[in-house]
């Protein structure tokens, strides 16, 4: 039972990958690419889903996927020409397939027969009913097989049945098959007649026999040599064939759809047991599969699925190692360099390796953003249907890699951003035509790595932000003072304030005034930043800047009183030592600093955290950090101790969240230092003004408002 659960689990994991790949292919088809490999890939993905569904008795998925697959079988054989209607139908079929799989996985009830109209449309598109489609396929297969042997050097038929214990004896038939392939054109079919029922299977045993057709210039001796090591215990026969025999064979092998069906099930199983070689389930419907390609896909699979916990443990241990080496480093002084030069040299080697190790371990957690980008086309389709707007989604940089934890938490914000773009940004077809824009709106979703950050942009070519209206709404909602002097950028970024929504009517899609606020919060929790830029009439761009990983961070180490804090380097704009006249004190806000034509609120860490200052600080330093919504805060510290890469440790693991603290880290001396949550730091310390009474212009005010 447990094993079956495991199979299920693997199947759904694979389905996720396969659906992702399927969607990419379908999008390519929609873009007009009708290349053979795209169609083949589409077929293969559907086929693998079907195969696994068959093995696990997911009958609805299997039946539906079968119709879907049949369509692409026709298309790839050239019998049915691909046209835009078929692509649209395929996209609908894809959505339905995804729904069926999701329902099966979650155990949710999904209305019986909901997929029927699409199934029917698929069958209609094939132009025949199911059965004959299958026969056609067999027919098509026979033609292929007949055509596959022109004036070949010699065609051999080889039957090979290894002993059941061949695998435990170290004779892996796979290697043999690979070796055979080097001799010439090889086609393989597995004979599974002696395969027992699933519960009787001994995973170590070999039950299969193979029939090969090998087209080669090499003589029978050369073939026999391949089997040299196993020939003694195996049933092996090698016969040279003439052409007519082979054609007959092609017919008998392919005209039995039931056996093909069984094969597909079997292949589905092996691919699952193999733990993730999704390319394995090669078209079984094709009686003469092109093993060259199939092989490279199956055996070329170089990835493994690893439980995330294991990776995390590894990441943690490497983090410890990094701390340990910092500790060791502190003992390296000039004296040691003099007395033990060799030791110091070895140590530096060790440190280099440790750093490489750390990078490599971090890379394990990295995943391409493709997995979340792939979910967006469907969202866009659904939303265009709901709104009646025509929208196309372009994606760029899907292979950009980012930490898995970040990926997982990125999905919701992206959904919100795209909803927002379609609901508020893109105009209706009529509006767009009146403006002389193309009737179809475009949303571009892109990802790229710039320095130590991943930049994700959602860009639309819609109406952009009406700044005047934004401003009015913000004033109406008491979010800003009526006379606040805000730059265009600041106005645009008001959209991220909690409770801000300019939607005239609350729609089903967005406009509840939570969407963009949630985006902002989620991204900040990830240690990222979000900003909005807009050109009226031309569209808006929302930019997310995300850290590559959540596990380590570059930080500035500062001291305030007796305490050491870490400020994320990514948030720091500048550190400076102000002249006294640059600092002013306001009755409500506390101290402010004039910085680049803005007034910046100052937060003294001693005040904010209620700690004691060690001495009167004439020599105070200010670190200007970017807080939220593009706001800026100055943090007053007593000393900057340096910059260091720190491993982020959770406070929540054993305790709970603490306001103003993002986490903790362990310093070289083994002591704990707290990592400041600069986005929340502006809310700490200083006195809080009453809403609407502050007329101090600029960012300082915006900061207070959002507090």
């Amino acid at each position, binding site marked *: 039972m447990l094993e079956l659960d495991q199979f299920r689990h693997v199947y759904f994991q694979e389905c996720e990958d396969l659906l992702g790949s399927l969607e990419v292919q379908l999008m390519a088809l929609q873009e007009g690419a009708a290349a053979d490999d795209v169609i083949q890939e589409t077929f293969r993905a559907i086929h693998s889903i079907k195969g696994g569904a068959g093995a696990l008795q997911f009958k609805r998925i299997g039946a539906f996927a079968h119709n879907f697959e049949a369509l692409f079988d026709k298309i790839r054989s050239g019998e049915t020409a691909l046209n835009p209607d078929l692509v649209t139908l395929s996209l609908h079929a894809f959505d339905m397939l995804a729904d069926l799989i999701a329902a099966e996985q979650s155990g949710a009830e999904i209305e019986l027969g909901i997929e029927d109209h699409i199934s029917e449309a698929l069958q209609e598109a094939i132009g025949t009913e199911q059965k004959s489609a299958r026969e056609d396929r067999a027919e098509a297969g026979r033609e292929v097989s007949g055509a596959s042997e022109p004036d070949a050097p010699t065609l051999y038929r080889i039957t090979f049945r290894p002993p059941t214990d061949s695998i435990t004896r170290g004779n892996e038939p796979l290697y043999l098959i690979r070796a055979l392939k080097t001799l010439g054109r090889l086609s393989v079919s597995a004979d599974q007649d002696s395969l027992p029922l699933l519960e009787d299977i001994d995973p170590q045993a070999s039950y299969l026999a193979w029939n090969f057709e090998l087209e080669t210039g090499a003589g029978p001796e050369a073939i026999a040599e391949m089997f040299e090591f196993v020939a003694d215990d195996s049933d092996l026969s090698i016969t040279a064939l003439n052409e007519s025999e082979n054609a007959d064979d092609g017919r008998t092998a392919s005209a039995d759809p039931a056996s093909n069906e069984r094969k597909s099930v079997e292949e589905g199983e092996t691919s699952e047991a193999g733990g993730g070689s999704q390319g394995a389930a090669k078209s079984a419907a094709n009686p003469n599969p092109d093993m060259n390609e199939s092989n490279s896909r199956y055996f070329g699979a170089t990835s493994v699925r690893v439980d995330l916990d294991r990776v995390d443990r590894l990441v943690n241990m490497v983090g410890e190692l990094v701390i340990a080496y910092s500790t060791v480093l502190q003992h390296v002084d000039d004296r040691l360099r003099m007395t033990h030069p060799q030791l110091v040299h070895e140590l530096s080697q060790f440190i280099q390796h440790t750093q490489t190790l750390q990078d490599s371990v971090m890379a394990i957690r990295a995943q391409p953003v493709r997995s979340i980008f792939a979910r967006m086309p469907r969202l866009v389709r659904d939303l265009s249907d709901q709104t009646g707007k025509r929208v196309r989604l372009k994606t760029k940089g899907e292979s950009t890699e980012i930490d898995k934890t970040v990926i997982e938490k990125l999905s919701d914000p992206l959904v919100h951003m795209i909803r927002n773009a379609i609901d508020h940004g893109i105009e209706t077809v009529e509006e767009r035509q009146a403006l002389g824009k193309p009737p179809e709106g475009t949303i571009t979703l892109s990802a790229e790595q710039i320095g130590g950050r991943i930049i994700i942009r959602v860009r639309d070519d819609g109406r952009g932000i009406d700044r005047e209206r934004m401003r009015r709404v913000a004033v109406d909602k008491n979010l800003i003072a009526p006379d606040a002097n805000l730059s265009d950028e600041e106005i645009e970024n008001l959209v991220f304030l909690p409770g801000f929504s300019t939607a005239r009517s609350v729609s089903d899609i967005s406009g509840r005034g939570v969407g963009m606020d949630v985006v902002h919060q989620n991204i900040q929790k990830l240690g990222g930043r979000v900003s909005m830029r807009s050109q009226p009439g031309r569209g808006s761009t929302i930019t997310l800047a995300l850290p590559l990983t959540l596990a380590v961070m570059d930080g500035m180490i500062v001291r305030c009183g007796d305490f050491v804090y870490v400020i994320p380097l990514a948030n720091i704009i500048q550190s400076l030592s102000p002249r006294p006249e640059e600092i002013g004190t306001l009755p409500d806000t506390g101290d402010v600093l004039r910085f680049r034509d803005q007034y910046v609120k100052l937060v003294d860490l001693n005040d904010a955290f209620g*700690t004691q200052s060690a001495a009167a600080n004439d020599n105070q330093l200010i670190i200007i950090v970017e807080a939220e919504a593009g706001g800026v805060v100055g943090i007053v510290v007593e000393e900057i101790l340096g910059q260091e890469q720190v491993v982020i*440790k959770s406070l929540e693991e054993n305790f709970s969240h*603490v306001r103003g*603290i993002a986490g903790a880290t362990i310093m070289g001396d083994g*002591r*704990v230092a*707290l990592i400041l949550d600069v986005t929340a730091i502006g809310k*700490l310390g200083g006195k809080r003004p009453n809403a609407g009474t502050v007329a101090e212009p600029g960012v300082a005010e915006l900061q207070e408002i959002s507090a």
Partner: protein
Amino acid sequence: MTVQSDLNEQLLAQTSETGNQDSGSSQFVAFTIGEQNYCVDIMSVREIRAWTGATPLPNTADYVRGVINLRGSIVPIVDLRTRFGQGETDPTKSHVVVIVAIEERLNGLLVDSVSDILTVSAENVAAIPETDVGSRARYLDGLITEEDRMVALIALDRVIDEISVQ
């Protein structure tokens, strides 16, 4: 430090013995805060450490002394004296932190010293006398009489849960 390691060894030995004992009796790690004796179930104790300082946490209750690094984990330290409303401990090197686990979450209890490991049968754990709003009693599960001392059994889940919630 050697006192602590001895205690830890004893702890380890006792914990493994517990498995072989009949279920009628339980073991408790007893410690002192001032004149008062307290104890916690030995099964929740992970280790005993000497006080080496903690990094204070801002914006937390006064009895949270801060956090320490326990082999890479950040563990909060609770000053039990403050927790029980008896003022603040002024810790020295001779003060002791008892690391306890409550449902996988680690917490350190700052106490004056660890005194003993008690083996007590279940019927010898007396109920707390009922009080109306027993401010301290809320955090206790029972009373144990050891020789002529009274040892209060701390209800770790209640003491710690309320800390984490804050």
